């Protein structure tokens, strides 16, 4: 895979089917899926007291806005990922083009996905920092790889935003 900046877009070239599939998984991975830990991480309380009046008001007025914000970002990313639709064979050496104006949506969706996956698997800080972890032997290993891969993309997009 190669990532480069070209005019007003970021290009992910020479995508192999495996990485293409991981990319296609971003919107689905960003959904808490009813897992309380994941839900709690995306919608953390704004104060120390979880049962405070302020927290109740937050849930009523602010949380719906946050949900809409997060959903809009994942929908934008899902739209970009339609470029990767097709069977496995057709995914070989594909290129994904991300418009620069979608960079913030990608940062958000990637972050949502990383937080949800980490919360679902309860990854430890040591696991998250072990970047030499290999090979992939289990679903948990795959999820950790997914978190790191999405983090890698985030880093690149952040560099691009900084110019």
């Amino acid at each position, binding site marked *: *895979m*190669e*990532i*480069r*900046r070209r005019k007003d877009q970021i290009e992910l070239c020479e995508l192999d089917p495996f990485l293409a599939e991981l990319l296609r998984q971003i919107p689905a991975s960003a959904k808490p899926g009813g897992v309380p830990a994941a839900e709690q991480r*995306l*919608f*953390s*309380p*704004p*104060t*120390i*007291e979880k049962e*405070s*009046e*302020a927290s109740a*008001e*937050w849930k009523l*007025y*602010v949380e719906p*806005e*946050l949900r809409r*914000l997060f959903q809009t970002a994942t929908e934008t990313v899902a739209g970009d990922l339609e470029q990767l639709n097709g069977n496995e064979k057709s995914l070989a050496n594909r290129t994904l083009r991300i418009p620069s104006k979608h960079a913030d949506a990608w*940062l*958000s969706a990637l*972050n*949502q996905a*990383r*937080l949800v996956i*980490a919360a679902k698997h309860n*990854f*430890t*800080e040591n696991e*998250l*920092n072990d*970047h030499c972890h290999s090979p992939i032997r289990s679903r948990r290993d795959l999820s950790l790889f997914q*978190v*790191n*891969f999405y*983090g*890698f993309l*985030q*880093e*690149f997009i*952040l*560099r691009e*935003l*900084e110019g």
Partner: protein
Amino acid sequence: MRISRHTPPLEFEQRASYVSVLGMNCAPRRNSGWLAQTKQVPGMTRASNEKAGTITTAEPSIETSSEEDLDVPWQIVVHNDPVNLMSYVTMVFQRVFGYPRERAERHMLEVHHKGRSILWSGMREPAELYVQQLHGYLLLATLEKTC
């Protein structure tokens, strides 16, 4: 995996900054709400009309806030999180608070090493808006009353 452009290669690794919610100090003020929806005016009287048919009488308000109370600053605390990238957290601090990069990085490192950092302090209403923005970026942020 490689990256082209005119930048040095970006290694496929992340440096996580990170956290778990740690102990915090002050409880939020009671009876005050997000977006300033439940603010009370000091000294106002309140009518008692709980049951239909009863005589309404005006009573002095039990809860009043002194000018001093209203001026007590609130602080925004960001807590460590083992997943959010350090570079991402720095960018968010720059965007939300308009801090220069050096200051944003200093706060990010404080979060990373000490588990929390006070990003801003001041009146409640702008503080609430900052916290909302930080949550929009998926950071662990809380609003706390300064002791």
